[in-house]
């Protein structure tokens, strides 16, 4: 008797690995299934007792039909039995595998053919908690959803190795920075400097989408010890938020700070180079009291004999321009005065691993860059000096992260006069000085600077050149995540950093909610750290 076998009408061919290599996986899912770029999937290899993890990078319509145009011929509105032969091929980026002992390893092997592909649960990511750091920024995102129990946290120890935050306008850069600051206030493992020309970090600015007022770092009451505020605002504001009055004194200033603020001719640059080591107070005094009307006479008339000797080779018109610029600097920066500087307090706060916010609303770009230039130079020189003087071991070293918003202004390929920031980028990590490079145009950042960044926080980037630049320089391979980067929504980021074994898609905490949660956490007892015995 011949057999006639009813075949199973269910379809076991889907959700099992069919290819390709160590660097990419492929499997089929039903054509009407909902899966999203960025979804993380678990591939269970029962033969080898390994659990692989992979991230969806692309979804493609495919079919078993030899006729490639089967779906676009005339009268193609009705199809029967599509689910067997028409399917979605999922391409996924291997993230690594968890071995039988629960240890996560890099993907140096492939799962056995036809290993089952499943959606993971939070417990499948238990290993990640072992590798997460102490600067929490969000929760792990998978496709359209999040794994609430999988917190994404950067390692404070890698922060001085520079960080880049890349996003176009409206993608949540400021929210990320506030969350990052709040976590840094909580952890207090490094000093963080942030110059805020828009007045949004201290107390928030404007309202959120739901109409609630936006919050600032000062609202993180439980972590208030980790915050130091320096502002140019009035006394009432300073009292409300326990802020210091911001002042810089003339001696904080050096001639090269001008390079960042104005365009200079070669002759003017030469003047600046000659004056590089001259104290700021002397420079201001010299240029304020010297008139350069007469080409010959000014040098004889000025009481600043040493400076006159060094500058007499330059034309009066060149020196007049320098005079005008220094006057602009003094006039437009109300926080700049002859004597009395906040810099020592700022440095102290940074050395105490606080987040230092320099709040200078309404002062404009030049003031912001001036403050940044002065502080970055001072911090770098001090750290450099400490490293030379004491031969500090890494463990003892104070570490500072300097935030530069719109960093393409000072770290662009062709920009001149930004030596201090370049030095921070190239050498800073040796001395415990890191840069937090925030920009919406990474393609305009000097590639040599990008190559120094060990942490990438990539939020939505619509420009292909920007995405290529980021993918080309990140320490982990982001090139396969291009589609995901393109489709990131506001508040979402891909984070590639040292210590976390693969780029993690992250839903950044909403700052206002995060601060609320942090404030709810048990406060430290008032007597913690005090001696309790005689």
């Amino acid at each position, binding site marked *: *008797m*011949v*057999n*006639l*076998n*009813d*075949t199973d*009408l269910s379809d076991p061919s889907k959700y099992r690995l069919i290819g390709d290599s160590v660097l990419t996986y492929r499997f089929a899912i039903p054509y009407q299934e909902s899966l999203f770029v960025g979804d993380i999937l678990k591939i269970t290899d029962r033969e080898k007792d390994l659990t692989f993890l992979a991230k969806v990078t692309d979804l493609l319509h495919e079919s078993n*039909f030899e*006729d490639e145009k*089967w*779906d676009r*011929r*005339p*009268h*193609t*509105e*009705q*199809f*029967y*039995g599509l689910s067997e032969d028409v399917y979605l091929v999922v391409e996924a980026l291997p993230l690594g595998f968890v071995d039988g002992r629960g240890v996560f390893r890099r993907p140096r092997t492939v799962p056995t053919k036809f290993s089952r592909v499943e959606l993971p649960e939070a417990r499948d990511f238990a290993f990640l908690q072992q590798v997460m750091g102490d600067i929490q920024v969000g929760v792990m995102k998978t496709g359209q959803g999040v794994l609430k129990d999988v917190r994404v946290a950067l390692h404070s120890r890698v922060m001085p190795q520079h960080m880049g935050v890349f996003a176009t306008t409206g993608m949540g850069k400021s929210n990320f920075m506030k969350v990052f600051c709040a976590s840094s206030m909580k952890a207090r493992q490094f000093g963080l400097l942030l110059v805020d020309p828009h007045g949004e970090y201290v107390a928030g600015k404007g309202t959120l989408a739901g109409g609630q007022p936006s919050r600032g770092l000062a609202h993180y009451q439980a972590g208030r010890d980790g915050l130091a505020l320096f502002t140019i605002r009035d006394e009432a504001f300073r009292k409300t938020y326990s802020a210091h009055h911001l002042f810089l004194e003339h001696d904080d200033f050096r001639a090269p700070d001008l390079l960042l603020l104005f365009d200079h001719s070669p002759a003017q640059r030469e003047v600046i180079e000659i004056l590089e080591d001259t104290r700021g107070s002397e420079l201001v005094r010299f240029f304020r009291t010297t008139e350069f009307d007469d080409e010959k006479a000014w040098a004889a008339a000025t009481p600043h004999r040493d400076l006159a000797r060094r500058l007499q080779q330059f034309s009066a018109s060149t020196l007049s321009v320098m005079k005008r610029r220094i006057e602009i600097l003094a006039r437009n920066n109300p926080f700049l005065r002859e004597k009395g500087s906040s810099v020592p307090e700022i440095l102290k706060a940074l050395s105490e691993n606080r987040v230092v916010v320099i709040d200078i609303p309404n002062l404009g770009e030049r003031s912001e860059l001036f403050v940044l230039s002065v502080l970055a130079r001072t911090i770098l020189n001090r750290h450099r000096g400490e490293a030379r003087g004491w031969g500090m071991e890494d463990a003892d070293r104070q570490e500072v992260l300097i935030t530069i918003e719109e960093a393409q202004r000072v770290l662009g390929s062709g920009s001149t006069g930004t030596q201090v920031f370049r030095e921070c980028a190239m050498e800073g990590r040796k001395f415990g000085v890191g840069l937090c490079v925030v920009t919406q145009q990474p393609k305009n950042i000097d590639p040599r600077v990008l190559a120094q960044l060990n942490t990438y926080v990539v939020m939505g980037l619509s420009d292909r050149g920007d995405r290529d630049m980021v993918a080309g320089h990140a320490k982990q391979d982001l090139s396969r995540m291009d589609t995901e980067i393109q489709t990131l929504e506001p508040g979402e980021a891909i984070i590639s950093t040292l210590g976390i074994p693969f780029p993690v898609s992250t839903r950044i905490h909403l700052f206002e909610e995060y601060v609320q949660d942090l404030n709810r956490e048990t406060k430290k007892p008032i007597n913690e750290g005090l001696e309790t015995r005689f």
Partner: protein
Amino acid sequence: MTAGNGRRTDRDEYRRDLSTLVERIRSLNPPDLASRFAAHCGILAGSYQQVTPVQEGTVAAVDGSNAVVVESGSFSIAAVRAAACGFSDGARAFRSVTPLRLATLGREAQDRSFADLYQECFGAEPETRLSDEDPDRAAAVLRDTLEYWVALQAAERLSAGNLLVLDGALRVSHASHDPVLVRLMKTCAKRRVHLVAVTKRTAATWGGGFPLVPAAVALAASLSIPPPWVLPMDESRLDTTRFSQWKHGALCIAALHPRSPLAFKIEVPAPADQAEVRRIVSLLAGWSDDGRVTGYPYPLLDVHRTARIRADAVQQVKNDLMAGMGGAGLDLSRFRNLFGDYHGELERY
């Protein structure tokens, strides 16, 4: 035009043949084809019966497949299988398939491949032996044997009002299948299951060689009769009736979808009741709207794909055969001696 020595050039000879072919084809499609067809076959506008597509009950289709795996000079090895697929409520309800059956061809007297398969399927010896002369035809007879058996199983599975669709005709090509086809038709009749055979390509002609189906389509178009329709044919008006002693169907032409230029020769058990024919064509048309094969009954496509023995399956059988021979102490050189020939070698170039 001739070359210098008076002979035609190669290109001229080719063009002359091509021109002759075109002329012959043109003569089969005269401008008055429709009216000549109507006059010759006695067809009026009312002869075309328009139907409404319906999807009711189950429509099952049966098909088979055969492939010659290896050939030696004196015998061949073939693989055959058959399948049945049933559809209802817009989706497949069942799919059944036989295992891949293997047989030797050209050694029927010694090996009884056909006789044994027939015995397995129908519990009796075939009334007619299978000739060893043509391996391709022998493989087709083996395939038909399985196909009829699967059709019988499918008919038993269906209930009153359902439709069973065969791929081909209600006419056998080997005498031993005649009682089997009769048994199938009786089973369907007893269970009140509609039975129809659909032919993708027919040799039927009229008027001295005019193809039948294109003429019926042309006439329907000239009469502005949109598909789906069915045209019962008086077979006495056709040119020839092959193997009429094994024929059990009444012949019709059917077009199944208004947007498709395709029409088919179909056969229903004779004598055909016109209401029965319309009902069958309605059921066929109800499943002929699939976008891949618009105008063709989708169950037949599905069962064809189920039964089809693809090249990779043939290669697998070949590999298994070599492995089996190796296990029996017959090495690769013996396989090559038996089944290797220069056709395979030539294919590589």
